[in-house]
């Protein structure tokens, strides 16, 4: 592999600067575009060569959109995407084709991302054919080598995707992504659809391949235990914004953003004693709509620590409380180490909160149905 040879040490492999991606929302009887939804809003993020960056967040927070913008599968609305020292934001299709060899994706759904009517050999061979790097016998050898690399039986070259299990299909997806020896592999929920025992097989495979081919990963998932296992650094997204980013151990030991803490505490731990004893923060309400995001800090509608300045001004993504440059947090009232968030109560107008300002459980407890219809 030739990467990182030509690059200065501190140059990130991929960097997005002020990236915004908005989609038109159509409504009304004429399907006019009445509004814009900012799926990704002013995100600046770097991925260093050889590292794994985990991107976590809930459904609809824009993590997949951000990844697709990075791979230029979407045109960005504004901002810049730098890859390998080059501005690729406005490259045309032909120029992008060269870059695509270096940026590949693995998708979540091992069933939907493989054409059921094509043979596995043809699916994995596509990248070679498209980029004209191998034909005929050489193509077959290369494909079978790849299949062996990802733990598939090369003799199954002529089988259809339907003949493989979910885990094996994900291996096919991995083989296809690796075909052209990319520098960056974007893994969009690569193990979410798999059973735990199979999930571990695929995670091991991804880690092994990273070591073998010195790959850089962007690892997108909602599963914090997986992302914690594989990532060197983690960025947490909430409603189209990055709210906190830090090296993995630091994100867990020195959690600054209340949302990150809530996310961590909501993750069920497979350890009964820990599950019984740990702090549990149950956030009120759902994710607000990104079409009309809350003012100021977007998390203020659900934040247990919300104050008036959270409603008024948007916090910048900067290191707080003496953190290093590599650990920025977008919060006016970041958490100190050991602070008990479950004791915090918001101090803002009830109208600024979701769900009528009430914590749903408390509200429910006061009006038990009891008598009449029971």
């Amino acid at each position, binding site marked *: 592999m030739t990467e990182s040879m030509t690059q200065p040490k501190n140059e990130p492999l991929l960097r997005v600067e002020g990236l915004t991606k908005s989609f038109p929302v159509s409504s009304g009887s004429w399907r006019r575009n009445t509004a814009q939804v900012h799926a990704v809003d002013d995100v600046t993020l770097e991925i260093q060569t050889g590292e794994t960056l985990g991107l976590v967040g809930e459904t609809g927070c824009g993590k997949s959109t951000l990844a697709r913008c990075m791979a230029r599968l979407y045109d960005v609305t504004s901002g810049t995407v730098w890859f390998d020292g080059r501005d690729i934001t406005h490259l045309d299709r032909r120029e992008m084709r060269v870059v695509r060899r270096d940026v590949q994706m693995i998708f979540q759904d091992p069933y939907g991302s493989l054409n059921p009517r094509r043979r596995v050999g043809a699916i994995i061979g596509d990248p070679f054919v498209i980029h004209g790097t191998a034909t005929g016998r050489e193509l077959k050898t290369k494909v079978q080598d790849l299949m062996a690399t990802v733990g598939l039986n090369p003799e199954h070259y002529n089988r259809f995707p339907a003949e493989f299990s979910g885990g094996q299909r994900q291996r096919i997806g991995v083989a296809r992504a690796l075909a052209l020896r990319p520098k960056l592999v974007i893994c969009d929920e690569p193990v979410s659809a798999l059973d735990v*025992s199979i999930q571990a097989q695929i995670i091991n495979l991804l880690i092994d391949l990273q070591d073998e081919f010195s790959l850089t990963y962007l690892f997108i998932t909602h599963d914090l235990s997986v992302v914690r296992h594989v990532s060197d650094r983690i960025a947490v997204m909430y409603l189209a914004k990055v709210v906190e980013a830090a090296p993995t151990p630091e994100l867990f030991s020195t959690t600054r953003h209340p949302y990150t803490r809530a996310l961590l505490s909501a993750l069920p731990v497979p350890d*009964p004693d820990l599950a019984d004893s740990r702090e549990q923060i149950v956030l009120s309400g759902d994710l607000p709509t990104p079409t009309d995001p809350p003012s100021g800090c977007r998390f203020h509608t659900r934040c247990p620590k919300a104050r008036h300045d959270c409603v008024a001004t948007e916090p910048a993504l900067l290191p707080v409380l003496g953190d290093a440059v590599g650990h920025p947090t977008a919060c006016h009232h970041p958490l100190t180490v050991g602070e008990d968030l479950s004791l915090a109560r918001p101090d803002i107008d009830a109208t600024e909160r979701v769900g009528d300002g009430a914590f749903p459980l408390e509200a429910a407890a006061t009006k038990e149905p009891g008598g009449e219809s029971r």
Partner: protein
Amino acid sequence: MALLEVRDLRVAFNTPDGVLEAVRGLSFDVDRGSTLAIVGESGSGKSVATQTITGLTSGARVSGSARFDGTELIGASSEVLRTIRGARIGMIFQDPLSSLHPYYTVGWQIVEMIRAHDRSVSTSAARRRAADLLGVVGIPHARTRIDDYPHQFSGGMRQRVMIAMAMALDPVLLIADEPTTALDVTVQAQVLAVMRRLQEDFGTAIILITHDLGVVAEMSDEVVVMYAGSAMERAPRRTLFYANHHPYSEGLLGSLPAKGGTRDRLTPILGVPPSLIGLPAGCPFAPRCPYAFDRCWRETPPLRMVFDDPDHASACWLTPVLSEREALRAARVDREPDQPQESASATRVEVRP
């Protein structure tokens, strides 16, 4: 007497490829007010088993017994099942959007549910009850939102509506089939909290079907681990996590990323689950088991008491002595290269006597 006693439940389906044995001799008890978690991977038969108990599997060959509060449910007439299902056994499914009718308001659907079981309840009383229930499960502005359609609710709110509907007639047993799998973690925490609180307030017993061992650790009293249609291990929650006996339970817990979060290799269970059509004799887990020895291939181990603990049962021939286990594992490793999937299944044929 337990609230629900399931004994030797067998469910088989005729498929073009042969008879698919989805559930193969499952037995468990659910006590009043307690939570039983049934955990297993896709295709382990955990959903089919509970759907059969409530009479929701059609075209299946069913045998065995499921006594619910003294009433036999297997083979019961649809009239009997209708009075029990919904009223005494509530159900929540994974996907709340496809479980709710898109054309009717959620209030209408809950009212329908209440009045289907008791026509003497007036529509307005049922409506009041529906609004109360929506409030109980934590839906804000319950009294106005009762007239909203399912699509106007978010995923977490829809699941709350499902819970409200399942709880409408005060069931003594709630069957929750992957209730939070489709939800984000923060919303999952909310829904689990609602279920836990309902259980405390109403003493409802819960059968929680899930593949998420984290949810099991947080919610359950007792756990049944299913694999290939039968129970591999049954134990109280802490026993299962800290002193399990069955290699499959051990493998499941071992394949989870460690709490420390280092970038080490995980220890997956090698291979893939077996096909449930024409499953050979012997332990179904033997082909993937690191400790399997000759007897495992010949005889199917019954679920029997282990560690002299009457609450702890495991379907495994292994003696619980750890050193012996390690010897077996070593013997197995010598025979089998550490290769995932394909090659593992290739070696499997050689190992089998």
